[in-house]
């Protein structure tokens, strides 16, 4: 067992995203490239054009995500392939000319996405954007997404969303305008959080900004008095908006515990000047009762987290603090700067799980089983699992507050109950 996990690091030793070791040296098939997320987001945002700069590989495969060269509203999603001369001398002139051509063809807001090779040769995309601003009428933002620097896909999302701030202009503040960063207006996979329904009933205009928003909505965003963040992918966007337009932000995506949620709601209350905390007392009580009931079953349970859990470190912190659960191993798709705080809290409580990136899904379960967990949380490729497993954690994305924590506990308890039932059935048959 030592051989299989000897190369992994404990959570406390992780300083940044690049320091997360792979579970296995062989990558098959590996995780998505950040370029994918950027391409998908660009295709979905109405009014946003994109220019993907890279080698034939990136540009060809990007068409799997951004399938058409032209969007529904005339957006252009074009590709720029570097030749051998540009790899040596840089692609600045070619990219600038390409953006000019896109502008001629009607592109207004353009995101230039640099992939591995432009990042590797050190092309200065920031100055390209600066020069383009002076030369063209369109608004251009640039991001660099070399996968050797941005190991997994989340960077593609948060850097793209952050770059959109470069396309915004200051607006007159509207005291009733609130941005929700990270949920799309047409979100269907998860119910609208109660907080947002309540704010809307109270007369606030909520602007949901996510990949399905339009540039028109995004450009209106600086009129808000508050940004409520519901996704790790939009926190850098909120920080940038705070810096550029002075819009305060409350990040709710990483908070699972009742005192934390109450504190965050109180901040929203203070900024907006309306009653919020007292309106959710019932939910708070319901969560407390659920936690009490779950406590007996979850205490000391050894668990591990695998893929597609939005924020494994804050969630682990909650499960330890609230229930005394024992984290054995965490798959981290991304290590966010905000995670440091939770890491030290986990360490203070006397826990230090192993961390890894699962990049060979087919062999992962066989290895992880050796750690004898009582519970697995997160997606893992179609393995026949003997351990109780909560496979789907993805649909909690975009949810926040008491109801999200309750839903997560319900799912974990449901999996444990089902497993218990199956075990009893097995014993009965035996």
């Amino acid at each position, binding site marked *: 067992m030592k051989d299989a996990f000897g190369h992994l690091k404990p959570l406390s030793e992780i300083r940044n995203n690049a320091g997360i070791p792979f579970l296995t*040296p*062989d990558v098959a098939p590996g*995780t998505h490239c950040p370029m994918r997320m950027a391409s998908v987001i660009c295709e979905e945002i109405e009014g946003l054009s994109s220019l993907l700069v890279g080698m034939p590989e990136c540009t060809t495969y990007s*068409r799997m995500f951004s399938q058409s*060269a032209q969007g529904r509203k005339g957006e252009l999603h074009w590709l720029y392939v570097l030749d051998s001369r540009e790899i040596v001398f840089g692609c600045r*002139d070619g990219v600038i000319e390409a953006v000019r051509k896109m502008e001629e063809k009607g592109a207004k807001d353009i995101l230039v996405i640099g992939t591995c090779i432009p990042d590797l040769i050190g092309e200065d995309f920031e100055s390209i954007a600066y020069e383009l601003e002076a030369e063209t009428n369109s608004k251009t933002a640039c991001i660099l997404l070399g996968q*050797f620097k941005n190991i997994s896909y989340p960077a593609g999302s948060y850097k793209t969303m952050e770059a959109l701030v470069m396309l915004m202009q200051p607006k007159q503040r509207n005291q009733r305008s609130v941005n929700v960063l990270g949920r799309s207006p047409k979100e269907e996979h998860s119910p609208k959080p109660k907080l947002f329904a309540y704010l809307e009933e109270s007369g606030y205009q909520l602007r949901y900004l996510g990949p399905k928003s339009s540039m028109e909505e995004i450009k209106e965003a600086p009129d808000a008095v508050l940004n409520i963040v519901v996704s790790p992918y939009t926190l850098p966007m909120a920080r940038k908006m705070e810096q550029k337009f002075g819009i305060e932000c409350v990040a709710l995506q990483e908070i699972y515990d009742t005192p934390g949620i109450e504190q965050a709601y109180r901040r929203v209350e203070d900024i907006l000047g309306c009653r919020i905390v007292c309106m959710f007392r019932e939910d708070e009580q319901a969560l407390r009762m659920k936690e009490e009931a779950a406590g007996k079953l979850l205490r000391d349970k050894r668990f591990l987290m695998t893929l597609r859990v939005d924020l494994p470190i804050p969630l682990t912190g909650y499960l330890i603090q609230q229930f005394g659960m024992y984290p054995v191993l965490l798959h981290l798709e991304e290590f966010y700067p905000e995670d440091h705080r939770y890491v030290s809290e986990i360490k203070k409580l006397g826990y230090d799980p192993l961390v890894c990136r699962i*990049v060979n899904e087919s062999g992962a379960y066989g290895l992880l089983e050796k750690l004898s967990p009582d519970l697995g949380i997160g997606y893992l490729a179609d393995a026949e699992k003997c351990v109780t497993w909560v496979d789907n954690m993805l649909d909690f994305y975009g949810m926040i507050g008491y109801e999200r924590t309750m839903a997560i506990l319900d799912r974990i308890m449901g999996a444990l109950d089902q497993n218990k039932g199956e075990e009893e059935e097995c014993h009965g048959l035996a």
Partner: protein
Amino acid sequence: MSGQWQYWTGSWGHWIRIKERRKNAMGLHRFKPVPSGRMGVLWTLATIRDAAVIEFGCMGHMLYAGTSLKRIGIQDACRLYSTHLNESDISMGDTSRLEKVIETVIKEINPRVIFLTPSAVPEVIGIDLHGFCRQVQARFPDNRLIVLGSGGFDKQLHDGVRETLTTLVKELTGSAGLTPNRTYNLIGSCADLFRFQEDKEELVRLLRETFQMEPLCILSSDTEIAGIEQMGSAHINLVIRREGKEAARELYKRFGTPYVCGRPYGVKGTTAWLEEIAEVIGYEGSREFIRKEEQFVWSRYRTVSPNFQRLLRSEPENLALSLGGHIDVVKGILEFGCTELSFPQARCWCDSPAMEEEGIPYLKEEEWIEIIEGHDKGLLMCSAEALEWGGKKTELQISNPDLKWRLYPFEPPFVGYRGALNLINLWINSCEA
């Protein structure tokens, strides 16, 4: 005012800079660009069973290459791995990841041959994969390591296909004497060509029925390592795309195996191909089969021939062929349409500057876009991507990039007698629609 003056906004220096940039913006594409040599290598290797490919590079590329290969119908063939790379690997030129992955792959599936390919990043930083391979091969005596695809940035898809076919033959083929029964190798059946599986099946059928010959190796779309190793035992090599010529020459040099180059399209074209093979192997084969196949196609053709003849007399432009794709595909279909059926030729193009011929030049994206935009009459056959964008009939697709999943490998072919009938069927339905 001429188009260029609209850019003149300031000093002459500024104007020269802008002109320079216009020249430089050569890499701008709306559509998928011509794939790189590295992609050609990977797509050619990916169909070989009981082997593994390890790409030394960032993992995203292999993930998407794998998905693309599944889309074009390649299942359960070569196992694809990558190593991933991070900043320190790049700055230190560190190849230890690659060695570890080789170890793990051998432990997991123990493939007889492991192909090592670089992605664009190690190519830029100049990692010497050949040197690495020489260094570590001794550690893995039972597993052959072969490096492919380190050919530089000017290499395109077809260079990669050629390199792979040639290297496979050079590195893996051994001598075992001729097989007792008549056998052949099909060289150049590769996954990058549209309908590669169907075309291969038609050729295998023709050779089986005409000469009672079975393939030893179908390089590379339907083979395992053992098949490549015994290529030297075949009686003839059939090269069905020009990238395979070098491999056939190599086999001729080493084993004296004769070869025939050609991709058979049309009725006469297919018969001529079979006759050439007959001459080379010294066996006439079943003339009866050829006669029946020809008759089968022509009898059906006769039912629509009056329609074609009427169009050729009154509106020949409606039957003018505009074809774009691989040179051998374009040339073959063009010859069938223009020579055997007397259709007029419109503008045709191929997808590699190194392969252009008179009448079939290589056209850049902006040039073939003009053809598609201006196309209002005639039969336009090219990639699905271009056809769909131009609002044309995607059923006339003859080349990639494709837009669909191809899980069903039993569509009609383009080559051989069945291919000829398929083309006639497509053409009559298109010009009458």
